[in-house]
């Protein structure tokens, strides 16, 4: 580097490196397409029971993607996910529903079109997440986690204290079924495709699939963009992030808002799936701490920060109880297990899964997947391995 100006002009003159074609990319895209095709075809093959179980998994997937963004990518521990689920569900029910009288009480509804209500519910959830920013900006680690826990208790209280919005803990309220341009995602009307009658389970399946795909792609794009880089910088080194021009407070607030928006959508999906919005009667329920922890388990099992990992985590954590319930009778487990309901069994399953991940592969399933992909890539590649072989990536890796 003796003649420096020469070097720099030479550098300026070089053409930008052309995007390297990757053989793996085609395979990966093809794989995703096949998966999507299989999922789209499922309603023609399986019954409503399994479809409903799949919908529940997708509820989990959407929420878990949101949580893995805020915890894994931005490094902000949040246990408030269940609260934002409640905010989203309630917002949808209020925005889309009609005002009605239940006994002596009024239940408020604005009667907006369901699509508008859905968007509104997601936006309101995001704003709720944003409102937590002044707290989130000041706290780190476990202090932030417990502080966010406060929101779950607040939600539990408000759910009961505001029956005009939530319908109260005793009966709840029925949300307006989702509809799009006059097409209802319910049992309304008769529709058959290829001889298969499409009723609520089939219709909701496609709706939820669309939600999940959108949630997935948005998160993946964002993680690879400027926003994702800023989040990871805040996670890894706040001072360095600030010096590089990242507004740390804004990045944290944004991560919380995005995660809350995902939870809000997940909450809308819960009310549509149950056909009911009902605040919890005890601390452990649909919107309780157990739900926050279940989402946390999904994110950890999948590998913190990994978006496909979050989806697989949802499959394990939310899929297990559903499938067990479906097959409990067929397998004759109904009576013999007594107190061990599918829910309890699945608690053990994901409890063990979390411990196994923490002990053996802190990067979660995502890291295992990358390792397998790396092995097969190395085997197929003919040229010698590069001098520096990338180590298997630890948690919170940005490749997704």
């Amino acid at each position, binding site marked *: *580097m*003796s003649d*420096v*100006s020469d*070097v*720099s002009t030479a*550098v*300026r003159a*070089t053409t*930008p*490196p052309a995007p390297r074609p990757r053989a793996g990319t085609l395979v990966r895209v093809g794989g995703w397409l096949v998966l999507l095709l299989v999922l789209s075809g499922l309603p023609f093959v399986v019954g409503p029971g399994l479809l409903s179980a799949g919908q529940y998994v997708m509820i989990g997937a959407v929420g878990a993607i949101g949580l893995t963004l805020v915890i894994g990518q931005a490094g902000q521990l949040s246990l408030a996910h269940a609260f934002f689920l409640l905010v989203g569900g309630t917002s949808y029910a209020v925005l889309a529903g009609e005002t009605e009288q239940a006994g002596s009480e009024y239940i408020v509804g604005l009667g907006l079109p369901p699509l508008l209500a859905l968007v509104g519910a997601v936006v309101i959830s995001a704003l709720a997440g944003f409102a937590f920013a002044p707290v989130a900006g000041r706290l780190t680690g476990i202090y932030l986690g417990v502080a966010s826990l406060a929101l779950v208790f607040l939600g539990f209280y408000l759910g009961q204290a505001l029956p005009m919005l939530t319908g109260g803990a005793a009966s709840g309220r029925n949300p307006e079924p989702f509809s799009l341009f006059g097409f209802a995602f319910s049992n309304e009307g008769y529709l058959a495709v290829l001889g298969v009658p499409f009723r609520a389970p089939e219709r909701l399946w496609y709706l939820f699939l669309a939600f999940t795909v959108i949630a997935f*792609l*948005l*998160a*993946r*794009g*964002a993680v*690879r*963009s*400027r*926003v*994702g*880089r*800023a989040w*990871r*910088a805040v*996670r*890894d*080194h706040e*001072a*360095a*992030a*600030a*010096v*590089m*021009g*990242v*507004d*740390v407070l804004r990045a944290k607030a*944004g991560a919380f808002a*995005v995660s809350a928006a995902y939870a809000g959508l997940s909450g809308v999906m819960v009310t549509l799936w149950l056909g009911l919005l009902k605040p919890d009667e005890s601390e452990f329920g649909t919107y309780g701490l157990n739900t926050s922890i279940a989402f946390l388990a999904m994110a950890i099992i999948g590998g913190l920060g990994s978006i496909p990992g979050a989806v697989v985590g949802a499959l394990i954590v939310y899929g297990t109880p559903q499938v067990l319930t479906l097959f409990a009778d067929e397998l004759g487990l109904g009576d013999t297990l007594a107190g061990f309901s599918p829910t309890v069994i699945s608690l053990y399953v994901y409890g063990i899964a979390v411990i196994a991940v923490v002990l053996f592969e802190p990067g979660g399933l995502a890291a295992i997947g990358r390792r397998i992909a790396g092995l097969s890539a190395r085997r197929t590649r003919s040229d010698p391995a590069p001098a*520096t*072989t*990338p*180590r298997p*990536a*630890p948690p*919170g*890796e*940005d490749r997704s």
Partner: protein
Amino acid sequence: MTADTARAGADARTDRADVPELRVEGVGLRFAGITALDDVSFTVRPGTVHALIGPNGAGKSSCFNVICGVYHPTAGRVRLGDTVLTGMRPHRLARLGVGRSFQNIALSQHSTVLDNVMLGRHSLTRGGFLSGGLRLPWVARQERVHARRAAEICEFLGIADRLDTPVAALPYGVAKLVDVARALAVEPRVLLLDEPAAGLNAVETAVMASTIRALRDALGISVLLVEHDMGLVMGIADRVSVLDFGRLIADGEPAVVQRDPEVVRAYLGAGDSEEQQ
């Protein structure tokens, strides 16, 4: 601002005439009764390499952190040209053209070199969650343009072959260069280097020295560095400021400062100065 004008703006910044003075004016800093800095003033002239030296605990890093907004001084101020930096939130400094590297490499270890360097482009780019998530055409174009510039910077520093390598897999000396590359990606007019040679071997130090000189000569930017390696400092610095116990005890050309009796006393008199921090 479109991506192309961003690029053009970035290039224009490296014009020597555009580099302002960095003035540290009477800066004082106290932590719970301890005076870390006391009435420190010096000026980094445009297009020069300015070294800030002193025994351990002299306040060099504190001074650095005051300049780049991580610490708030209890007295005095820092100016870049006509702009007062003091009191600004740190992230705004990047936009004004202040780049900084870190003493203990502050990179995202699991991200690739390119991803780390691209962070430096943050204030030169736009886009939020939705536009990034949807990968809108202008976002994709902006990403391409800035990735190209990041690659150029890495090429300049001789690390272009590591763009896709995770930082954790790099040797220390290369990681140090990535940290510098990220600071350069801000398109700084003033570059702050915090102990760029710390932890490097002799060969790596020589590479770093020629790199720093190259930055000044090719880009015309000012460089302010904190450094322990006297050989490096005396070899590349145009001007040296010496801190001791938070006070400025000398400020001038390297050859003059080197003979300053007070500087000699500070370095030789304080026998324990080589203790690790």
